C-alpha cells in the first residue's frame, strides 16, 4: 500500500526499501517531485567513521600544554541584590591562578550592539555572562576562578563569599505581569512598535496584529471554542555540555576552541563584549554534541578569555549538567489564550490569540515568531494576535528548534481539534477546508509564497496510519499541524580541486545533522562527481568567509547554495581548461554529469583535474551567499496513545511524522531530523519541565529527574517526506530541522482527549497531571 501522490508533480520515487511493516506498507515514505543524480540519494556520511570510533574531537577533548581549569560560581538565589563579593580566600588558595568578577569586564555603558541576533543593550549581554549588581535567576554566573585543576577551581569558587539581599521572584509570565510583581530590571519599560510607556514593567514588548474584524467573524460563527493553556519551561537537552578553551596568546590574538552552533557569532560577540578588534579573535569550532538553538548564545567564552589574559595560560571550562540546566537555554514557558469560531459549513470565521511568553532574565522570549506561527496553517479573514514578552526569574531564553512555535501550536491545534469535533467534522478534513495556500495572507501581514500545507495534510489523510483501527482499550488518535519559517542568512564555501579528481570543500557551518555531506552532495551534483569524491571540512574563522550560525534550518539551504555556486565556478573553469587543451572557445565546451565535450573531444572531471598544472595551475573557487527565497516548512503528526486510567501514564503506541521539506538532499538525514524533532516534542509533551520551588530554585537539575524520553519510551517514529519544491533554491530545498518539533505537543494532547475524553491544557501531560484530570471527570 502506498500513500497517494499529494500533487500532480509527485511521483513517489525513491521510496526507501525497508522492513515490511505489520500494517502492510513500507515505512519512511518519500514523496518526491524532482529527481537528481546525487541530491536525493543516501551516501555514507563523511564524518561517520570518526564519530562511531570516538576519534571526533569535541570541546572537552581540547587540551593545550599548560592548560588551567576554570570554574564558575553561580547564584543560589532566583532574585537578589549583590551587596558584596569577597574573593580574598579564593585568591590565597594553593593552585589558584586568577579570580574574576563582572568588574573585570569592560564597561558596557549604554551601548546598543548587534550580537548576531539583532540589536540588544550591551549591558544585558554583559549581565548574562557575569552578574554585576543583581542576580536574576538561580545559576546566574557571578564570579570565576582559574586553577591548576578542576577540583581546586571548584573548591576556590566555593570559597568566594557573596553577600546577597534576597528579593521576591516571579516565575511565570502571568505572575511577572502583575502590577505588584517585583521588577527584574530598573530600566525596563514596555515597548509597542517604537512607543515606550512611561511605566516600568516586566513586560518588555507588546505587539498586536489584526486582520479583518474578529468581532464580525465571531458573530458569524455557529461554534466558538475558547481555552487557555500553559506550557512549562524546558531545556534543549543537548547531550554535550558547553565547553571552551581560551588562549590569549602573547602576540595579542585570542584563540578559542568551543562547542558552538556559530563560530563567527562567538568571534563577533566575544570581541564586542571584550571591546577588542574582531580580527584579534580566532574561533575553532569543535565537533558538537547537539545544540538545537541552545548553543548560539555566548556564556563562558569571555570569562575563559579574561582568565587566560590574567594568567598567561590556556584556560578550559567545562559545564556540568547542572550548570547546563541552571545557566543556559532554556525555552520559554508560556501562557496562551486561543479563541476560534467556525460556521456550520466548516469555515473558520475568526481566530484570536493572546500569547504571554517567559523571556527568562533578559528580554527575548521568541513570542514574535510564536505569534507569526500560531494560526499560520489557516486561511481566515478575521484574525487578532496579541503578544507579550515578559522577563521572569529563570535563565535567559535561548532558541530551541522552531522557537516559539510549539507552544503556540499546543494551544491553537487543540482548539482547532475541539471545533472540528463540535461540528462533527473529521479533524484533517476540517484543517484542509481551511488550509493556508500560496497567496494566503498571514495575521502578521505578509502573504505566503509556495508552501506545502495542503500537501502535508493530504499526505496525513492518505497515510495508512490515519485509517488503521486502534487496537486496544483507552487508546486514542490525534493529529496536528505546525509551521516554521526557516532562515537564510550568510554562508561561504571554497572548493579546491585535487589532481586526482577529488575536491576539498571548505566551509564554516558547524555540522550538527550531517550537513558536511548534504553540502558536499550539492557541490557533487553540479560537478557531476560522486559525493564521496568531495572531502568537506569545517574550519576556523580565519580560514573561510563569514558564515552565520547553524540554525534556522538554514545550513543545507544556504551553505549548500554557496557550495552550488562555487561548483558552478569550477565547472566554468574546467570548461576554460578543456578549451585550452582542445583549442576551442570555452563557450563551445559542453558539460554534462562530469564529462566535458567539444568538437568530438571528451574528458572527464578527473581527467581535466589531472591536467590542472599544465593548463594554468590550481583550480579553486569560492562563493558567498546571502540568499533570499527562504521556504517555510509545514509538519504534521498522526499519534496513537494508550492512557493508563489508574496511573495517568501515557504510552505512545504509534507515531507518524509528515513534513514538507522542499527537497530531501539526503533522505536518511531528513528522516533523522523528523524523528529527532518528534522525540523532543514527545518529551516536551509528556514529561519535561523545570520543576521549580516557590523560591525559584530548580528541583530537578539532573537527567535522572529531568525526564527526557529514551528509546524504551518510544515506538519507531515513522516518517513521510513530502517534497513541495521551494522555488527560491536551486534544488528546491526548504530546510528540515525545526518544523517537526511543532505538532507533537498538540497531537499527543488531541490523542489523549480522543482516548479518555480529557482536554489537557497544561504541559507536561505527565502521569500525575493526566491522573488528576481524569479524577475530575
Amino acid at each position, binding site marked *: 500500500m502506498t500513500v497517494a501522490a499529494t500533487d500532480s508533480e509527485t511521483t513517489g520515487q525513491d521510496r526507501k526499501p525497508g522492513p515490511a511493516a505489520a500494517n502492510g506498507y513500507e515505512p519512511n515514505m518519500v514523496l518526491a517531485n524532482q529527481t537528481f543524480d546525487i541530491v536525493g540519494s543516501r551516501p555514507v556520511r563523511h564524518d561517520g567513521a570518526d564519530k562511531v570510533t570516538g576519534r571526533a574531537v569535541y570541546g572537552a577533548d581540547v587540551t593545550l600544554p599548560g592548560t588551567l581549569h576554570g570554574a564558575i560560581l553561580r547564584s543560589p538565589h532566583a532574585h537578589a541584590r549583590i551587596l558584596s563579593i569577597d574573593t580574598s580566600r579564593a585568591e590565597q588558595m594553593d593552585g589558584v591562578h586568577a579570580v574574576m568578577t563582572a568588574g573585570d569586564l569592560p564597561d558596557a555603558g549604554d551601548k546598543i550592539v548587534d550580537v548576531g*541576533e*539583532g*540589536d540588544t543593550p550591551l549591558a544585558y549581554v554583559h549581565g548574562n555572562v557575569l552578574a554585576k549588581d543583581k542576580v536574576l535567576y538561580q545559576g546566574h554566573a557571578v564570579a570565576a576562578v582559574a586553577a591548576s585543576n578542576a577540583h581546586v577551581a571548584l573548591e576556590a569558587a566555593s570559597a568566594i563569599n557573596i553577600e546577597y539581599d534576597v528579593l521576591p521572584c516571579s516565575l511565570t509570565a502571568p505572575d511577572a505581569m502583575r502590577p505588584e510583581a517585583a521588577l527584574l530590571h530598573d530600566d525596563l519599560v514596555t515597548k*509597542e512598535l*517604537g512607543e515606550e510607556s512611561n511605566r516600568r514593567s516586566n513586560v518588555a*514588548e507588546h505587539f498586536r496584529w489584526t486582520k479583518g474584524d474578529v468581532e464580525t467573524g465571531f458573530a458569524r460563527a455557529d461554534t466558538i471554542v475558547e481555552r487557555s493553556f500553559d506550557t512549562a519551561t524546558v531545556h534543549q537537552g543537548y547531550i554535550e555540555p558547553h565547553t571552551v578553551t581560551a588562549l590569549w596568546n602573547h602576540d595579542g590574538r585570542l584563540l578559542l576552541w568551543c562547542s558552538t552552533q556559530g563560530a563567527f557569532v562567538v568571534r563577533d560577540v566575544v570581541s564586542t563584549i571584550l571591546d577588542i578588534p574582531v580580527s584579534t579573535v580566532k574561533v575553532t569550532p569543535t565537533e558538537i554534541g547537539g545544540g538545537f538553538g541552545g548553543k548560539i548564545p555566548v556564556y563562558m567564552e569571555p570569562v575563559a578569555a579574561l582568565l587566560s589574559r590574567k594568567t598567561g595560560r590556556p584556560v578550559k571550562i567545562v559545564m556540568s549538567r547542572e550548570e547546563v540546566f541552571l545557566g543556559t537555554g532554556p525555552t520559554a514557558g508560556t501562557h496562551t489564550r486561543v479563541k476560534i469560531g467556525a460556521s456550520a459549513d466548516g469555515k473558520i470565521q475568526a481566530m484570536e490569540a493572546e500569547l504571554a511568553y517567559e523571556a527568562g532574565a533578559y528580554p527575548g522570549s521568541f513570542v514574535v515568531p510564536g505569534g507569526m506561527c500560531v494560526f499560520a496553517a489557516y486561511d481566515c479573514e478575521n484574525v487578532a494576535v496579541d503578544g507579550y514578552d515578559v522577563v521572569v526569574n529563570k535563565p535567559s531564553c535561548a532558541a530551541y528548534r522552531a522557537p516559539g512555535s510549539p507552544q503556540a501550536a499546543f494551544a491553537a491545534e487543540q482548539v482547532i481539534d475541539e471545533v472540528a469535533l463540535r461540528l462533527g467534522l473529521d479533524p484533517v478534513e476540517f484543517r484542509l477546508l481551511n488550509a493556508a495556500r500560496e497567496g494566503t495572507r498571514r495575521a502578521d501581514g*505578509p502573504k505566503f509564497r509556495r508552501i506545502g500545507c495542503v500537501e502535508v495534510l493530504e499526505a496525513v489523510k492518505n497515510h495508512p496510519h490515519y485509517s488503521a483501527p486502534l487496537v486496544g482499550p483507552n487508546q486514542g488518535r490525534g493529529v496536528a499541524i505546525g509551521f516554521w519559517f526557516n532562515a537564510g542568512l550568510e554562508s561561504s564555501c571554497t572548493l579546491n580541486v585535487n589532481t586526482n579528481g577529488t575536491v576539498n570543500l571548505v566551509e564554516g557551518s558547524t555540522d550538527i545533522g550531517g550537513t558536511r555531506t548534504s553540502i558536499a552532495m550539492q557541490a557533487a551534483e553540479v560537478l557531476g562527481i560522486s559525493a564521496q569524491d568531495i572531502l568537506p571540512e569545517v574550519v576556523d574563522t580565519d580560514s573561510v568567509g563569514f558564515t552565520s550560525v547553524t540554525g534556522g534550518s538554514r545550513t543545507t539551504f544556504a551553505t549548500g547554495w554557496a557550495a552550488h555556486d562555487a561548483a558552478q565556478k569550477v565547472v566554468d573553469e574546467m570548461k576554460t581548461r578543456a578549451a585550452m587543451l582542445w583549442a576551442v572557445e570555452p563557450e563551445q565546451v559542453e558539460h554534462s554529469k562530469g564529462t566535458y565535450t567539444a568538437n568530438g573531444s571528451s574528458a572527464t572531471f578527473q581527467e581535466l583535474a589531472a591536467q590542472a598544472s599544465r593548463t594554468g595551475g590550481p583550480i579553486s573557487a569560492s562563493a558567498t551567499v546571502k540568499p533570499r527565497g527562504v521556504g517555510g516548512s509545514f509538519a504534521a503528526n498522526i499519534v496513537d496513545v494508550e492512557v493508563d486510567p489508574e496511573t495517568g501514564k501515557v504510552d505512545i503506541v504509534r507515531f507518524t511524522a509528515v513534513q514538507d521539506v522542499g527537497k530531501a538532499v539526503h533522505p536518511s538525514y531528513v528522516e533523522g531530523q523528523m524523528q529527532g524533532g518528534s522525540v523532543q516534542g514527545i518529551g516536551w509533551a509528556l514529561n519535561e519541565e523545570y520543576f521549580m520551588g516557590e523560591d525559584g530554585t530548580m528541583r530537578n537539575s539532573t537527567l535522572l529527574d529531568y525526564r527526557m524520553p529514551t528509546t524504551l519510551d518510544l515506538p519507531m517514529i515513522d516518517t513521510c517526506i513530502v517534497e513541495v519544491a521551494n522555488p527560491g533554491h536551486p534544488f528546491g530545498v526548504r530546510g528540515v530541522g525545526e518544523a517537526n518539533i511543532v505538532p507533537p505537543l498538540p497531537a499527543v494532547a488531541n490523542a489523549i482527549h480522543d482516548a479518555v475524553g480529557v482536554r489537557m491544557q497544561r504541559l507536561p501531560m505527565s502521569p500525575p497531571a493526566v491522573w488528576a484530570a481524569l479524577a475530575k471527570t
Partner: protein
Amino acid sequence: MNCGPHYHERLVATVFIPSMLRPLAGDAEEIEIGGATVRDIVRNLTAAYPALGDRLLDNGQLRSNISVAIDGEISTLGLLDTVDSDSEVHFIPAISGGRRRTDADSLG
C-alpha cells in the same frame, strides 16, 4: 534603461501599516507609496505622516525593535534594501526588548 532618480520615483510599493500604528496614518491599513528603496519609502511616509515616521525611525535608522519585511521575507538590509513596483512592505515588531528582528531570530 533609465535607472536614474526619476525612474525610481515612479516605483510604487504597497506599505502595510501595523494595526498599532494605524491611528498615526489616518487609520489606513495599506498605503501605496513611491520609492526604490526602503529608505525612500520611509522618507516619503514620513513626509505624509510625520508621527508615523517618528515611530519607525530613530536618528535616521530603523528603530532597534522594528524590522522590515519585503514580499514576505525579513530584510537583512533594512533601509538599504530595494523594492519593486509590486512589492509589499511590512514593518514588523522586534522579536524582543531592544532586539531587531532579523533572519537570525528564526534560529533554532
